[in-house]
């Protein structure tokens, strides 16, 4: 079994998320009849409908994704019969709040104006007419229209994906294979002609081991790339082709979340949506969605413009949950699920070439996420629907999947749609966060309220240029000598630095309750159910080991959502444990050192890998 095998199909798809769900749902309606018979014929298996295969790297189609609040315009348009009650953990939105959280501990890093605002709130908050200051929080009296999701849905993307995937497969129009990481696109003469699956039966370094099986080449007339913001196929195409002039992919966030069984005394009603700003750090946004069954999906986003080299989402998440505004109703709750994922927040600015000869890009990796409206799933789904319509049109006309034909059909539909119109408005909405939290909030409001006519301009920089040294970040709060001591101690014990540093600047210790406040490792096991099948190579590697040895921040360790990247007591190159990785991809963009080959990339290489989260409730 040591020879690389090859297989032909009509359409090969990479990554099963909402975009691919939209694509396959639409495609299925066009290529098979309701009785399963073929509307049109495959070119590789005559007599059958076009053969459509989708490979997903995660171990099931419902694992490893996130909670969602969405207007669901595109989803409802393509699924007019959709009944939220048919999908577990799905419900209409009943109430929305945006809440500013004051820091109860004084440990966060706040600018002077923000400190002054907090002081004024604490002193006078309850006395201002219309200002509801309670539990160290203010519920904003007004939600800007560009942010509100009234009339939409909140749901678990894992459950939604399961429902969509099973519905698509039941039509017989497509096969969706989980646990099948795709290593790379196959590019011949500047044309994508299929994909190569990851090698199996290899050791950590990718060398053949027991039961070695080289990843199969799956050749297809069309390759649909929907592998998300850190997918290896999309990034390989970008590396081969570059991005369109003026585009960059520098804005990211890691979203980390829990799904929680709420305690009995919690009064939040189903469909409640709460967005928070201001705490645990001003740059970190929070979300809480109340789902059916007295369950909440909640968590935080830690963005790339949060200039903290020890940006640990897990520790911050625990502080956020314990904010008095939330904790009074969360205390006594129990974790059901845990997960994390990267969000591509460059949106329109990071849009790659959407099509080329033999391929098309859909979903988050194609720049659909709208950072102004805080919406991505519906946009991703809609981009998939648009490609589905285009592919059916080309198949009906018997036209090849050339760049030109895909431009005329798919890209034209996308450009004419609300996805594009809103993406244009949002394009410069978050620029000002590069200058700080307050300019960022003002800039976002300015752009949103003027529908993109105005913005607060600021220069964009790659993440590695933004991350300061630990000494710079804690200047005036922890001495350099103390940081050196903490670093030496932590390295000797194989620990990350963030806990010691955060303790030092006044963050209270987390008192584990064994239910919601649990160790990071227990969150992986009890919540994420993280597992990894043997026989695959390490998917996180470091491009230049000497660069790691010289790195004093090692943000990859601090930011790792699964404690899979750890300090190496014997060497400066971090250790990676594949069995703990949740595949969020945060290491890829949090690295503080640029790649020597391309300064827009970092020193971390993130390849295709199996395993990860095994909870389908995220």
């Amino acid at each position: 079994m040591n020879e690389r095998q090859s297989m032909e199909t009509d359409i090969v798809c990479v990554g099963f998320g909402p975009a691919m769900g939209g694509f396959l749902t639409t495609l299925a309606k066009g290529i098979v009849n309701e009785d399963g018979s073929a509307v049109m014929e495959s070119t590789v298996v005559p007599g059958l409908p076009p053969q459509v295969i989708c490979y997903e790297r995660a171990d099931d189609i419902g694992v490893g994704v996130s909670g969602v609040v969405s207007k669901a315009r595109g989803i409802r348009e393509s699924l007019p019969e959709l009944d939220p009650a048919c999908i577990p953990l799905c419900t209409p939105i009943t109430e929305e709040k945006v809440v500013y959280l004051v820091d109860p501990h004084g440990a966060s890093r706040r600018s002077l104006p923000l400190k002054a605002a907090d002081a004024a709130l604490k002193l006078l908050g309850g006395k201002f007419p219309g200002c509801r200051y309670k539990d160290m929080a203010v519920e904003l009296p007004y939600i800007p229209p560009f942010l509100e999701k009234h009339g939409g849905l909140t749901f678990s993307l894992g459950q939604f994906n399961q429902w969509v995937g099973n519905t698509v497969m039941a039509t017989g129009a497509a096969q969706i294979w989980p646990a099948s990481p795709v290593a790379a696109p196959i590019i011949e003469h500047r044309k994508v002609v299929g994909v190569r699956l990851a090698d199996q039966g290899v050791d950590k370094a990718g060398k053949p081991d027991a039961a070695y099986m080289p990843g199969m080449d799956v050749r297809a007339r069309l390759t649909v790339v929907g592998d998300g913001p850190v997918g290896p196929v999309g990034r390989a195409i970008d590396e081969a082709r570059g991005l369109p002039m003026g585009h960059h992919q520098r804005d990211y966030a890691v979203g980390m979340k829990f799904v929680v069984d709420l305690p009995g005394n919690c009064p939040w009603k189903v469909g409640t949506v709460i967005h928070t700003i201001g705490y645990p750090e001003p740059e970190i946004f929070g979300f809480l969605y109340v789902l059916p069954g007295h369950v909440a999906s909640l968590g935080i986003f830690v963005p790339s413009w949060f200039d903290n080299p020890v940006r640990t989402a897990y520790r911050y998440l625990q502080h956020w949950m314990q904010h008095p505004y939330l904790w009074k109703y969360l205390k006594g709750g129990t974790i059901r699920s845990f997960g994390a994922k990267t969000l591509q927040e460059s949106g329109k600015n990071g849009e790659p070439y959407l099509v080329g000869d033999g391929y098309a890009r859909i979903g988050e990796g194609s720049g659909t996420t709208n950072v102004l409206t805080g919406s991505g799933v519906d946009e991703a789904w809609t981009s998939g629907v648009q490609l589905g319509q285009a592919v059916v049109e080309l198949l009906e006309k018997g036209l090849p999947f050339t760049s030109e034909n895909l431009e005329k059909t798919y890209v034209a539909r996308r450009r004419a749609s609300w996805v594009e119109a809103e993406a244009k408005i949002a394009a410069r909405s978050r620029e000002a966060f590069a200058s700080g939290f307050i300019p960022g909030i003002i800039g976002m409001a300015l752009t949103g309220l003027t529908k993109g006519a105005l913005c607060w301009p600021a220069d964009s920089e790659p993440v590695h240029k933004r991350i300061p040294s630990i000494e710079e970040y804690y200047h005036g709060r922890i001495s350099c000598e103390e940081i050196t001591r903490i670093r030496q101690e932590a390295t000797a014990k194989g620990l990350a630095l963030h806990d010691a540093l955060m303790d030092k600047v006044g963050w209270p210790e987390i008192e584990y309750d064994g239910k919601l406040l649990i160790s990071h490792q227990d969150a992986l096991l009890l919540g994420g159910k993280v597992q990894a099948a043997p026989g695959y190579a390490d998917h996180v590697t470091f491009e230049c080991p000497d660069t790691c040895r010289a790195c004093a921040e090692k943000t990859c360790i601090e930011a790792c959502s699964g404690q899979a990247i750890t300090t190496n007591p014997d060497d400066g190159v971090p250790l990676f444990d594949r069995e703990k990785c949740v595949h969020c991809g945060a290491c890829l963009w949090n690295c503080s050192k640029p790649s020597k080959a391309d300064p827009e990339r970092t020193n971390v290489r993130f390849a295709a890998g199996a395993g990860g989260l095994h909870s389908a409730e995220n």
Partner: protein
Amino acid sequence: MFHIVVCGGIVPDPLQTLEPVKGPAGWGLKNELMLPSILDPWASHALYEAAHLAKAVPGSKVWLVSLGPKAKLQQVMMTVAQKAPFELVVADGPAGGFVDSFEVAEALFAAISGIAGLDASKLLLFGGWQSASRGSGSTLQILGEKLGITDQFQGVDKLTVGADGSLEVMERIEGGAYQISTCTGAPAALGWATGELPEPPNNPQVGMANMRLVMPALQKAKPAAVNAAAIDYQSVTLPAQKRETRVVKDTPVDVIAQEIIDWLAS
């Protein structure tokens, strides 16, 4: 040549938080349909052994007979069908592990009896020795009896086929020892322990070939006639567990053993 029928149900993926609840249709697991599922690990070993045997003995064929909700089975098949060639036979019914084993055996018997072209004289009935979902270890034995199979083996780790078609079976017995038995050949029932084969890699070509039969099998699956009231449980509890998680690598075996002894002693 053999006609190998592997019986395998689906169970929640390991590490899932399980909560038994009693509903109108009897006991089940809370949110069972939301949990990701896998083919029962014990049955998986049986399937891999069956595929290996079928490959070694020309003309042999493997059927996977499964009792479970067909929507969930469809999803699980996408993680199984790339591993080994088989033909799926579906009995659409509950898979929570609470149905009486006699009822399960009846449903599987009905499904197996409906397999066209199955030659009972060549039948090897494979399954898991145990199940990850409240296995009583009796289903395969009852099913074997219903099929008229008198040569039954449990806790099997190795099967060797002689040139004359005889079967040499290595079974686990008490005290960590093995018992080796020989029978003249099929039909026989083998409840597999872990076997000796690793999980095969995913082979997309095998998956594509299997799916041509899996989807029609799911579409024509008939509801299984299982009587949930055939058994009642006075109470249902999960095994108590105490979590004290540490992640320590390269710990010597002696240290691990001592920790377990200390834990038991406490």
